[in-house]
């Protein structure tokens, strides 16, 4: 928004100060992430820019840390684990969260606020407390140090996101549509899959995305519950930093940033498409 002609000196000063603040915040948020990317191509095993790099000499750069990463069994296993656990937890969280949101949106649901608060609590309770609780509970059930344990724990963390996004979509949902479907002869399950589901899909997709990201970068619960077999990428990075300080984790981090961006873009496109199909935005 350009300055209006009647702006006073004070307005002008504030106008430019405001921009400077905005850019500073932006820089503060992005710089640590962006600085990692060139560093991951460092030819030397340092976390700082070498003079060759600063002079943009080709010999200062290399793909050795990427090679290192791709050639490492433990990193490959952690990638597999992250995706397996992430996808399983996302499917569970999305299913459970969608069903919960549907139930909570019904007018006859008793103790709505209480149930909602309970389901959302994993988001609010400090993670370390959930993690410790789950550790003891899962140990009793003998599912600590197992894939099942990590998946269930991540499901609990991801479900609130799905509940929130789907509930938000349901606020605008016209319940006479399900009645109309019933009057037209559709059974409740047909109505759900052909009418309700397509209409709440944008919310379900956003929720699923959040659930996946939550699981994908979660470390606290993994530290407590995962055994050596279930190490995920964040867990591997954590030990990478603590045990052998190698720029490999910069390569991994760069790849993770890339994956996250791609995922976000894809999902956003998907969500826009289904929003359009929903007939809410003209198109």
């Amino acid at each position, binding site marked *: 928004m350009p300055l209006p002609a009647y702006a006073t000196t004070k307005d002008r000063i504030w106008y430019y100060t405001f921009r400077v603040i905005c850019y500073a915040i932006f820089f503060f948020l992005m710089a640590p992430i962006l600085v990692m990317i060139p560093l991951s191509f460092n030819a030397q095993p340092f976390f700082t820019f070498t003079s060759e790099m600063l002079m943009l000499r080709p010999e200062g750069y290399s793909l050795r840390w990427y090679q290192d990463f791709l050639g490492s069994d433990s990193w490959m296993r952690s990638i597999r684990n992250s995706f397996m656990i992430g996808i399983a937890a996302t499917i569970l969280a999305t299913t459970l969260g969608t069903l919960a949101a549907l139930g909570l949106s019904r007018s006859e649901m008793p103790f709505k606020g209480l149930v909602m608060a309970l389901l959302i609590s994993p988001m609010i309770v400090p993670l370390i407390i959930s993690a410790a609780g789950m550790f003891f509970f899962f140990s009793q059930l003998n599912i600590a140090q197992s894939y099942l344990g990590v998946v269930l724990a991540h499901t609990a963390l991801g479900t609130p996101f799905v509940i929130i996004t789907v509930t938000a979509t349901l606020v605008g949902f016209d319940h006479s549509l399900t*009645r*109309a*479907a019933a009057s*037209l002869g*559709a059974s409740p399950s047909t109505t759900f899959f052909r009418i309700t589901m397509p*209409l709440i899909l944008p919310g379900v997709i956003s929720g699923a995305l959040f659930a996946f990201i939550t699981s994908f970068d979660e470390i606290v619960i993994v530290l407590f519950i995962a055994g050596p077999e279930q190490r995920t990428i964040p867990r591997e990075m954590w030990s990478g930093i603590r045990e052998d300080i190698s720029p490999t984790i910069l390569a991994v981090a760069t790849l993770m940033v890339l994956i996250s961006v791609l995922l976000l873009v894809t999902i956003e496109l998907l969500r826009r498409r289904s929003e359009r199909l929903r*007939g809410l935005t003209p198109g």
Partner: protein
Amino acid sequence: MSENDTEGFVVFDRVQKSYDGETLVVKDLNLSIARGEFLTMLGPSGSGKTTCLMMLAGFETATHGEILLGGRPINNIPPHKRGIGMVFQNYALFPHMSVGENLSFPLEVRGFGRSEREQKIARALDMVQMGAFANRRPAQLSGGQQQRIALARALVFEPELVLMDEPLGALDKQLREHMQFEITRLAHNLGITTVYVTHDQTEALTMSDNVAVFDDGRIQQLAPPDVLYEEPQNSFVAQFIGENNTLDGVIKEIHGDVALVELDNGEIIDARPVNVTRAGERTRVSIRPERVEANKERLHPDAHTIRAEVLEFIYMGDVFRTRLEVAGNENFIMKSRNAPDQVRHKPGSTIEVGWLPKDCRALDMPS
């Protein structure tokens, strides 16, 4: 047909409905609707009419009593197995489907083949003159067009009974009048039984074979439109349907179908006793404005006349509306046709007005 013809196609048998287990929203409803009949449930909001419709559709369950469709009790049949078409107030078209897909939906769930579906969809769309719109999305249609599609969708699977819940409420006046005509024409041409819910009395009078006037969870009167308008059975119906003049008084005596009523200012008039039974009872006398006559030549020789003071004269084109003071009521309206010989009464003048005793109905005094 398995049902007994004298029984009616849709029957409400002593139906009651309570949402909270204490207050009855519908109190002892008995109603029989014949096959092919267009019945309107008319009443103010909260009168129980929509609840009745929802019970018939299966979205609400009756607390008590039985609802029969074609002689079969349907209390335990879920809505999607009742085979009843329904038009909703907000149309309830599926926004993520095209018009054609909306119409295809009830046919798909019934397992019709593709060619049969297309045939039926085309026929239903032509019926509402929307044949060219099959590929549009509901959001791309105007309110009136959406209404037509909702109607076509409720009819496309050829139900024997169609329910309509204030379907014209969101349309403007002109479109509403046009759609009233179209809906009645379609319903009669197709021979379907229609139950129509509205709070608009004009709609009820112009569209229906029979009108059930609801108030306080009961049917106050069930009658064809002309009977309802001309022979209301109680004060509520008289007041709710059309414009109505009222005069309060006490019954002096009743002889057959004539009652002498002493009005509160002491004047005595003749009236037809409707739901009053004995002398001494308080009564509210009701007269339609267009049945009030100031021209003695047009009145029956033995018609009772009463003195009235002209308070206001309103020229409305086709009719004159004269506001009178009659027996203490300052809102007594006389409606007269704008005929060449019609007198335009000056405010301040005193005239004699009268009516036929049969148009003056002695009804209950509402509490």
